[in-house]
């Protein structure tokens, strides 16, 4: 039995007090190297909060970010380093886990002020979407690459194809997700696709990358960095911005989701069945309480699955629910990816989605949702481990 008054939870215990990002560039277009991008985003987040960067005592990231914690601490001259956490595997599936790991460090008393970030210069280090220069390959990719299943589009299309087959999901449902992201990007001057609107005709006429993904079903590839500053709830009110409290977070995947190659029992899934359940339990909310969602689009099909697994609709109702009207701010039923997301703001490996959820809670988004006291972020779908989180205002805490 737990001790009275002792609850193992992150609910309301930490808050985001600052957010910052670099300019977002097309892949290869950043004038700065990756590590410098990381530093710029971190300083920008500290300036937003009004905190001295020397106070940072921890760093958290995911997907083997190359901007290593001790180098950051040395470069920034922080007084001491108390936590350095890296989420294992899952690529962009770790974008919320990195926040959860930082929050756990703070709640456990290991650190007081943790920066969570992602920096990515695909021009400097190579693109996710190209796979040249590999002679021999072993492990999971050995069963895939010789057959031309090389980069993420080919690695995920068969999952989505199977899901569409099992539940009768149509192309139009995926198209609505792309259109909503592009619609929101038109209001967002940070967005790489700002000033480049998308309409149904343009989507339909766009080339196939791999069926069932058109060009506009696939995320961009970009250079940039994004960061946030996390402190314990006791200190949340000391800084310049309205705090966004962490209501909950969850990490993982279901039974044998990591069975390679493509042998996970629940194949046609985004890996969120168990993770969504854990999140809602910790945050003590359900899908009906959520006013706005940022859901990682590696591919639109993954968003369909992820939203269904978070209980917003049954898979069989995806075609009815997923319309542009329902997915756009301010008054759609479920405003989605209100910054433009991975498709149209920037592929900051999903971390731009976390920053956008903070803006929604603050009330400063360029596409503000009517209900934004409780904001959901869903990390990269169809991977393991996946992760998600919920942010809320003081009122929602």
């Amino acid at each position, binding site marked *: 039995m737990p001790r009275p008054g002792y609850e193992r939870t992150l609910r309301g215990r930490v808050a985001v007090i600052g957010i910052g990002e670099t300019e977002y560039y097309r892949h290869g277009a950043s004038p700065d190297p990756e590590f410098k991008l990381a530093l710029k985003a971190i300083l920008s987040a500290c300036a937003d909060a009004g905190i001295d960067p020397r106070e940072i005592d921890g760093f958290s990231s995911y997907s083997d970010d190359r901007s290593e914690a001790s180098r950051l601490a040395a470069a920034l001259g922080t007084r001491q380093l108390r936590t350095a956490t890296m989420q294992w595997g899952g690529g962009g599936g770790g974008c919320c886990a990195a926040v959860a790991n930082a929050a756990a460090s703070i709640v456990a008393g290991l650190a007081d002020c943790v920066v969570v970030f992602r920096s990515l210069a695909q021009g400097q280090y190579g693109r996710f*979407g*190209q*796979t*040249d220069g*590999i*002679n*021999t*390959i*072993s*492990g*999971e*990719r*050995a*069963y*895939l*690459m*010789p*057959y*031309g*299943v*090389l*980069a993420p*589009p*080919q690695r995920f*299309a*068969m*999952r989505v*194809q*199977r899901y569409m*087959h099992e539940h009768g999901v149509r192309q139009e449902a995926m198209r609505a997700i792309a259109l909503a992201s592009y619609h929101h990007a038109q209001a967002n001057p940070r967005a790489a696709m700002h000033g480049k609107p998308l309409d149904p005709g343009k989507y339909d006429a766009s*080339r*196939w*990358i*791999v*069926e*069932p993904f058109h060009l506009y079903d696939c995320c961009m590839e970009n250079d940039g960095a994004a960061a946030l500053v996390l402190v314990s709830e006791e200190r949340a009110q000391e800084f310049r911005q309205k705090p966004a409290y962490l209501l909950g977070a969850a990490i993982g995947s279901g039974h*044998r989701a990591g*069975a*390679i*190659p*493509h*042998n996970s029992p629940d*194949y*046609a899934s985004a890996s969120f069945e168990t993770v969504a359940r854990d999140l809602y339990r910790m945050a003590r909310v359900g899908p009906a309480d959520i006013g706005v969602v940022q859901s990682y689009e590696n591919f639109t099909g993954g968003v369909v699955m992820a939203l269904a697994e978070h209980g917003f609709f049954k898979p069989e109702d995806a075609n009815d629910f997923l319309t542009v009207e329902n997915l756009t701010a301010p008054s759609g039923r479920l405003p989605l990816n209100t910054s433009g997301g991975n498709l149209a703001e920037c592929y900051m490996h999903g971390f731009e989605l976390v920053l956008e959820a903070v803006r929604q809670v603050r009330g400063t988004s360029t596409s503000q949702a009517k209900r934004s006291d409780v904001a959901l972020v869903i990390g990269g779908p169809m991977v393991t481990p996946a992760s998600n989180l919920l942010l809320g205002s003081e009122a929602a805490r």
Partner: protein
Amino acid sequence: MSTFGSTYLPAGLPIPVSEPDGLSAPYWEGLRQNRLLVQRCCHCRTWQFGPEWICHHCHAFDPEWTEIEPRGRIFSWERVWHPSHAALKQHGPYIAVLVELPQAGHIRMVGNLLGDPRQEVRIGASVAGTFEHHDNAHPTFSLLQWSLQR
């Protein structure tokens, strides 16, 4: 089948090899000899693919390699248009399939569907496997490809 020029995809894609610890070596060596080997636990009879050092069901180590007939049905598929590798530039579309093997515990394998790359593909269709040998590659290797069963 077999020699350079008769393979489904052009030469130059990554070549599959076993891990340094040899975990999948029997699988790749089997394909070289026109044999499909997958793991089956000799204690609890659970099928397992890809290979692992332990049976995921009963935790017996070193599941036995068992030869099975390469036949199954299409569980999912994709038609790839965008070349994600220099070797595929100007190649045109190709089809990858995920094949389920009901006679081996419904394990699944990825391969290509031989024939017209623009053919309609039906989930559930029966397919049979053939061994595609890359004898001019360095190192040499073999793949398992799939064709619709008439």
